[in-house]
């Protein structure tokens, strides 16, 4: 086992432990357990960082090239955003779900294996770092907004927790705004890079088309907030749809449809 594998397995274990600890803090409503969950998540994030750095050092390149490497970074972004944005009390359930998602992403990355991928000529560009870097934040924020939307729907069914809904909606809104900003940058950096590498800034390639569809869905969410009828439950369901599309763009589009994004 390499340092990379050990760090990755540690991250997986600690993300799972964080999910369980956050779930316990939701049930027991204990601030101490919640604090411990953040510490566990922090250790998972540290291990994830170490795994990504180790892979980069071993391969002597940026570890941003294939699906496994991106999944590891997605988990990293999601865990980091969870620590930064979900510090306030009352959202431990969302933190538990986000930690589970991070664990799932790391698990999928482990399943992908640590096989070395030869970097194609098109990927040897500064735009790779910008495109994937912005995608990590965007996808992480969308993952977090999904966890918050699910929490919102659950809390709506529980009358005792209705008082916290407006601030939860506000948090969801800010998370989506963050994700939308970075998703816009993902599309722009990808378009500029595609123009340099493939000669066309927009080719209706399956992955870029699904990324556009994802962006459009979040655009619909942000526009819909101006209409009172769209707020609340419909908006939360739209975010769940948006995250399903995000996952499909990441995992499904490349496998199901032949295209230029075969990484």
């Amino acid at each position, binding site marked *: 086992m390499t340092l990379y594998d050990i760090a990755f397995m540690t991250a997986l274990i600690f993300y799972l432990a964080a999910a369980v600890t956050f779930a316990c803090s939701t049930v027991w409503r204990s601030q101490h357990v919640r604090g411990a969950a953040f510490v566990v998540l922090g250790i998972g994030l540290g291990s994830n960082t170490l795994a990504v750095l180790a892979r980069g050092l071993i391969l002597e390149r940026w570890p941003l090239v294939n699906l496994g490497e991106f999944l590891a970074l997605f988990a990293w972004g999601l865990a980091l955003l969870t620590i930064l944005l979900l510090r306030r009390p009352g959202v431990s359930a969302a933190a538990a779900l986000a930690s589970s998602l991070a664990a799932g992403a790391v698990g999928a990355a482990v399943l992908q294996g640590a096989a070395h991928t030869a970097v*194609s*000529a098109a990927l040897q560009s500064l735009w790779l770092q910008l495109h994937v870097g912005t995608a990590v934040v965007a996808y992480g924020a969308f993952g977090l907004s999904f966890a918050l939307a699910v929490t919102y729907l659950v809390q709506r069914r529980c009358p005792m927790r209705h008082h916290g809904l407006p601030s939860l909606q506000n948090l969801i809104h800010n998370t989506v705004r963050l994700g939308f900003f970075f998703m*816009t940058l993902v599309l722009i950096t990808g378009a500029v890079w595609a123009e340099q590498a493939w*000669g066309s800034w927009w080719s*209706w390639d*399956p992955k870029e*088309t699904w990324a*556009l569809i994802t962006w459009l869905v979040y655009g619909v969410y942000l526009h819909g907030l101006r209409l009172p009828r769209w707020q609340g439950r419909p908006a939360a369901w739209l975010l769940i749809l948006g995250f399903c599309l995000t996952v499909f763009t990441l995992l499904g589009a490349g496998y199901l449809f032949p295209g230029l994004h075969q990484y």
Partner: protein
Amino acid sequence: MESIRRCTVRVWSLLCSAKLGLALIALLAVASAYGLLTGPWPGALPQGLLTALQVGLALNLSCCLSRQLRAATRSLSSHPSTEGRQPFAPRYGLSRSFHSLAEVDDFLTICSRRIGLRLQPPRPIRGEDLWLVHDNPLGFFGLPLLHLGLLLILIGLTLQPWLGSTRYFETTEGALLPLEEAYGYPFSLLVTNLDVLDRGNAAPEYLTHAVILEHQRPVGQADIRVNHPLQRDGVKVYQATAMFEKKLTGLLVKEEPTLPLVYAGFIVTGVGLALHYTVQPRRAWVAVNPSPDGYRLHLSLDFASPTPPKDGTVS
């Protein structure tokens, strides 16, 4: 005449509406998904439908943009119309009576300190006044810029098939690519050599060395490889494919006059989004009118926090 005017207003409202924009965006998303599911893009989707959706969205964006620009410039004006309505959806409202104008001025001073926005009018209060104050004026242009950027990108995307041209050529070492004579491009290319760059762990990278010819005279040299296209006189030549064993190179020659428009759209979109998210403008609408017991002050804010002192009537 009245019916024409009403009809025009109705059409304008429809074109400006967020609902139409949402419907078009949703249709574009569904069409994109359907187009992908039915084979290589646009699959079974008629090109005309896609263009119609793009044009519809461009029209909607233009109308939204004009409405947003109007709202932004109205917000910047310190002398709004005397219609008695605030040019924004208020999130906080206050209405209170005072015995004298000096009391009104004192109250506005206290409010200004509390909310961190100067509410006093640009000239002394005379007893029947209406004014608008704001901070961070750049923030008003975030959304208009975002929509302008998207509009530029959409125009570039829609016009590209008509204004641009793309041709693919396969050629061998030592062969002349008569772009100028046969296709009317501003130059031709003489492929002198096909090279392969060994990048260690990375996949090999192909490189086409060429001499640029204008009117059959060499005017320069070019090394064309992936991510590093040759760019000259509005024409770009990209390294597309290569079969090194057969000494065969594939070059994509592209003229795209709408590209600067699209890149401008990218920049404007990014700036607009950054402005919209980072610079939060605040607006206050203040009206002072004579009343039986002195003067009545109406204050509307487009933000809910921080709020003025609570010793007033919140509407």
